């Protein structure tokens, strides 16, 4: 069964019926946002049932759209978070990713600024590697990016999308070895993105991200995960009620091949490993439960079928 990411937008009226319907069809609600009287649900559900949901929600004026970024956690990496350089273009990039369904984090490096003096430390490297994808938002000069980017990408194993002010071709030409995606014409600017031209540039970022995510999803489909991250999320929600008391925006962040669980690792790791998914299969059998470098959170990496020989 292939789960497809969609976004559902609708009113509060009879929302419970929609949620029940999605769950009955075998879908999972990855994230829920209440915005005034509107509710936005980010859902992973079987592809063939989307039409049914559209029909079902029509009388309620609900809106169903495909949004490939649902169920991904993306990090926006910038050289520094210095206060006098805000509003940073990275804020707009991150916000735009969020409105397209992804869970986005911003990572401002401690010493990423400058050209010669730029550096990446081990904590930053590990944090970036915990995400599905990293977007590097760099500056205005091609020669600067050329010098500092190799330092900032050292040890990064996740796909990278490089953005900067120089044209896409220039970035592509000077990056060796190549990265997963490039977006030109962005760079450092001090205003919020409001004009059409600005927003078009953000659309290009999303386009590039979608391309990379689609490739990554395809890669995973070739050797499917032992359990869907969305299903694991539902089980954790059900079995560990303490997660309801976590006030982070996304207590369980769903990734392409795992989850970030915002509970203390020393306290909950064993509990998570012992959770029963089905029959005698436990979480510990199909996934690695690891300490995350983000606070003391838990990072769950689901193992593929080829390693476990189980699909639940």
């Amino acid at each position, binding site marked *: 069964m292939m789960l497809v990411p969609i976004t559902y937008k609708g009113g509060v009226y009879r929302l419970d019926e929609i949620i029940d319907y999605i769950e009955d069809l075998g879908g999972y609600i990855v994230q829920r946002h209440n915005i005034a009287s509107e509710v936005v649900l980010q859902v992973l559900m079987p592809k063939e049932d989307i039409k049914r949901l559209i029909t079902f929600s029509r009388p309620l004026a609900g809106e169903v759209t495909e949004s490939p970024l649902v169920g991904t956690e993306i990090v926006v990496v910038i050289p520094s978070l210095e206060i006098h350089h805000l509003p940073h273009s990275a804020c707009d990039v991150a916000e735009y990713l969020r409105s397209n369904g992804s869970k986005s984090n911003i990572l401002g490096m401690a010493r990423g600024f400058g050209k010669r003096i730029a550096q990446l430390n081990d904590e930053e490297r590990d944090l970036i590697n915990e995400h599905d994808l990293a977007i590097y938002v760099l500056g205005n000069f091609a020669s*600067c990016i050329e010098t500092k980017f190799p330092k900032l990408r050292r040890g990064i194993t996740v796909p990278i999308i490089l953005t900067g002010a120089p044209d896409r071709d220039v970035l592509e030409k000077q990056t060796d070895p190549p990265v997963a995606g490039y977006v030109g014409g962005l760079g450092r600017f001090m205003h919020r993105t409001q004009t059409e031209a600005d927003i078009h540039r953000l659309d290009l970022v999303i386009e590039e991200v979608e391309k990379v995510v689609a490739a990554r999803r395809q890669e995973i489909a070739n050797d499917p995960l032992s359990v869907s991250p969305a299903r694991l999320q539902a089980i954790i929600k059900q079995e560990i009620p303490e997660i309801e008391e976590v006030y982070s925006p996304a207590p369980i962040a769903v990734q392409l091949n795992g989850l970030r669980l915002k509970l203390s690792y020393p306290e909950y790791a064993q509990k998570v490993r012992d959770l029963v998914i089905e029959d005698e299969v436990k979480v510990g059998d199909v996934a690695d439960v690891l300490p995350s470098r983000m606070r003391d959170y838990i990072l769950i990496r689901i193992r593929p079928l080829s390693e476990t020989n189980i699909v639940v």
Partner: protein
Amino acid sequence: MSGLDYFEVECTEEGSDNYNKIATTVLQDHNLLGIVEGLHIYINPAYPLFVATGFIRQTRSVIRVSDVGNVLIQDGKATISVGDETYLAAMLKMFWQKFGHDNVDQPDRFTVIIKNVDIPKDLREWVVIDPSESLFKDLIYAIQVIAPEGFKVRRENYGKNRFSFAASENTLPAEDIEKIIADRFAKMEETLR
């Protein structure tokens, strides 16, 4: 850029357009467009080096107590009905220092009463804030914001009605910078005067 008589971004590499935009936004955000007469920015990403030189206009006049609100001196009391709250905090601070906390009363948001002390006759003329004092500080701060991140080695100069700012992540080559600054000032003077 509107408001400036001279504005140029000189760059040894492609990318000056972006700095054009950044400088405009920052000066606008910091409310400095009316004060800066001319600005020349020189960027050399190869070294890397960032140099800004500029002229400023005649400074704004000082803010006096009478600019903050109407002053009524009666029965050994001074009542100030505040019209412009912008400098209220600065005025109160000054009063507290001169008259003491106990003698300055603010019964509501728009009224300040001074009592129990001799009210100086020239109270209306007292200077609350002299904007030119903080002007260069504001200006240098704004230029720092325009400069690329991480340029921690800085050298700034101001006097009379001109200022210069140089920054890099490497040691600054003093002589080269002097020359760059002098050249740019000469060029600006030629255009402006």
